[in-house]
């Protein structure tokens, strides 16, 4: 078995898979990063991702374009983000409970509608994206094809991470976002509308999560199955911690989780004698290790999870 593992084609194959697995996790991580930076836990990222996957699949099925499907996914993500924002920011509901509600809602409505809409079309492969090779770099032997030929959505996830980093640390908007997550009252007294900042961030959080979902359905497997997000949105919550609330940190953390996920799949194929159910758990066990602070503890934004209700 080990001979196979250290075979060159196995390693390149593994790395390609790790990067592919990492893309939805990157989106989930960025989704949770932006909402937590503004002070809101987005436990609903899982449901937003699943809804994104479903809506992207339906959109692609009817329009014949993966891109249009992904556009629809962004709309549903923004709407679910808006729902979470209304519940947890305006109404001051518990953020955890609101998020869980969105997850259950999403699971229910995607499972139900997918049977109605796609019941007969389930075997039909959905339209997908052409992969993009970066000129020149893609010609590098062995690694070029792994790192520089990817789905456009993967590039979009990296671009978002870079843009978010710039916004967070170089712009007045970013300062307001970071401050809202630390001490909303101070932000309020500085004359900034805390609710507006959080609304925008939570809606973008929804969009990012649903992009991750779109990648799952139209980007990779080219069909939709019930509960196909399978906990990736929750892993986003771990990724935030491992990435220390930094967008680029989230990209790295997602790569680690992606690698574990890819490894897990390969171990299944090799029949290592461990029931596959245990192997499937591997990323989540990694999650436990990540959040238990083994990798060095970073401080979460001080006010995350606490609704900010103005007294007047």
């Amino acid at each position, binding site marked *: 078995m080990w001979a196979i593992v250290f075979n060159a084609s196995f390693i390149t194959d593994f790395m390609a898979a790790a990067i592919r697995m990492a893309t939805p996790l990157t989106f989930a991580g960025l989704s949770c990063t932006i909402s937590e930076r503004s002070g809101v836990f987005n436990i609903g990222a899982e449901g937003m991702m699943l809804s994104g996957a479903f809506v992207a699949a339906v959109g692609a099925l009817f329009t014949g374009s993966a891109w249009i499907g992904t556009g629809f996914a962004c709309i549903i993500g923004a709407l679910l983000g808006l729902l979470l924002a209304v519940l947890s920011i305006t109404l001051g509901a518990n953020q955890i409970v609101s998020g869980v509600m969105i997850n259950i809602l999403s699971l229910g409505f995607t499972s139900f509608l997918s049977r109605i809409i796609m019941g007969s079309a389930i075997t039909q492969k959905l339209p997908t994206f052409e992969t993009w090779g970066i000129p020149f770099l893609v010609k590098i032997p062995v690694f070029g094809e792994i790192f520089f030929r990817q789905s456009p959505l993967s590039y979009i996830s990296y671009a978002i991470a870079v843009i978010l980093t710039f916004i967070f640390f170089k712009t007045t908007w970013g300062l307001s976002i970071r*401050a809202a997550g630390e*001490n909303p009252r*101070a932000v*309020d*007294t*500085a*004359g900034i*509308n805390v609710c507006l900042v959080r609304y925008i961030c939570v809606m973008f959080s929804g969009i990012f999560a649903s992009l991750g979902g779109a990648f799952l359905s139209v980007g990779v497997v080219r069909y939709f199955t019930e509960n196909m997000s399978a906990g990736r949105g929750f892993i986003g919550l771990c990724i935030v911690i491992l990435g220390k609330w930094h967008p680029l940190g989230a990209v790295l953390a997602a790569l680690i989780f992606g690698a574990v996920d890819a490894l897990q799949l390969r171990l299944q194929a090799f029949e290592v004698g461990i029931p596959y159910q245990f192997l499937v758990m591997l990323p989540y066990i990694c999650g436990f290790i990540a959040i238990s602070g083994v990798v060095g503890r970073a*401080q979460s934004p001080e006010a995350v999870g606490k609704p900010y209700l103005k007294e*007047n």
Partner: protein
Amino acid sequence: MPFLEMKNISKRFVDVVANDRVCFDVERGEVHTLLGENGAGKTTLMNILYGLYSRDEGEIYLDGKLVIISSPYEAIKLHIGMIHQHFMLIPNLSVTENIILGLPSSRGFLLELKKAEENIDNISRKYELRVDPKALVRQLPVGLRQRVEILKALYRKTDILILDEPTSVLTPLEVETFFKIIRRFTEDGLAVIFISHKLNEVMSISDRITVLRGGNVVGTLKKHDTDPNKLAGMMVGKEITLSLDKPCEKKGKRLLEVRGLSVNSEKGGKPLVNNVSFDIHEAEILGVAGVDGNGQGELTDAIAGLQPVSKGQILINGMDVAHLSPRKRIERKLGYIPSDRQRVGLVVDFSVAQNLVLKDFRDTPFSKQRFFLNRRQINTNAERLIKEFDIKVSHGNEKVAFLSGGNQQKVILAREISGKPDVLIAMQATRGLDVGSTKYVQERILEHREKGGATLFISTELDEIIAISDRIAVMYEGEIIGILSGGQEIDLERISLMMAGVREQKTKKSVS
């Protein structure tokens, strides 16, 4: 026509009238003080001016023009700045980031940290408010954080500066410097509104003084037309003597000994309590002075068993309790009045009677077979203590949440003192209480002393510590800088130097 005028401002919260047709005005170049006890409505009035609260009635005129201020954003646009009692700073951001938060930038949405740093440097040089613009706020001591707050207001080109109890975080010496800075502001034409309940400070800085009581204006006076006694009378509404009766001391055996006690910070770095040693004898009160947040809370929590001890011993009656559970320490006759009475001292949703037996409901007579509660005994106990400690409550089954702060403190006091502890820890026992309740709590603590108990009395009010203590320890950054015996003339300057971290020997050397 005054520069700023607030006319007939009223504000009601659910069940209290916080401001009742209050009129207040301030001119450029003057310090106008709002004086009153806690709950008199000073901060509410200023929160209305700053747009944090909406007013129910009344009008605000600026330069003779009617203005509507419904959010801090509008207040800032009108050049009103406010330094809140609890700082509105973000510890994880830098000084500059805190100051420019919410301000537009000339480069659109891009931050201009460099330019802002220069501007901050200019302002801080002009008013001698030195602070490193690049430092993270959490690395700064409290006094400097206040500077950041002031710089934040100045950076926004403030015409009216509201200071809500700004001196509570400063040592007496720092207060003097602070007042000098305020005078620079008024010379530059700023209108300063100063909120306080400390009479001596009010007399030293104000041009005019408005006294509030129960949400009403009692009167507005020029400083030259009044004196502290008159102001105190106006604040409280009745004559009150501020002196305490303290019979002379007798030294007995040591009841509490603390040896080399350290409490480490969870976040690493300097210990919160650093190698602290002292002892307290029978019938003795050791006062601990110091600016809030210098390890006093961690020290008392460590003695009470609420915070793990990293190093050292705590001996009650000669027995080391440093690693025993809080309950075991209570059994060894320790009483504790925590600073946060609603979160630590009481279960506010429980009744007065239940709160009074929180420490011994498991023992006879309050339980039968150590399992069933004995309601009758619990109620009898409540009736007795309510009478004995003069707790203003209709019956023992009333929820503690509905009691006033003073009465809540009396419930804690009754529970802790009625257990006849040998050692009583009183942490900020009079904070936020009105003058009457403060006096009551102090008298009860003195009574505990007379009965032979040892008391550790922690307060940030220096006057109170001097009045009540036999000896005074000064804490700074987790260490005890020195212990002064009470008999000698207490030198305010000496204590305040110690509160700022200057050690005794050093000062002597530098003087000679």
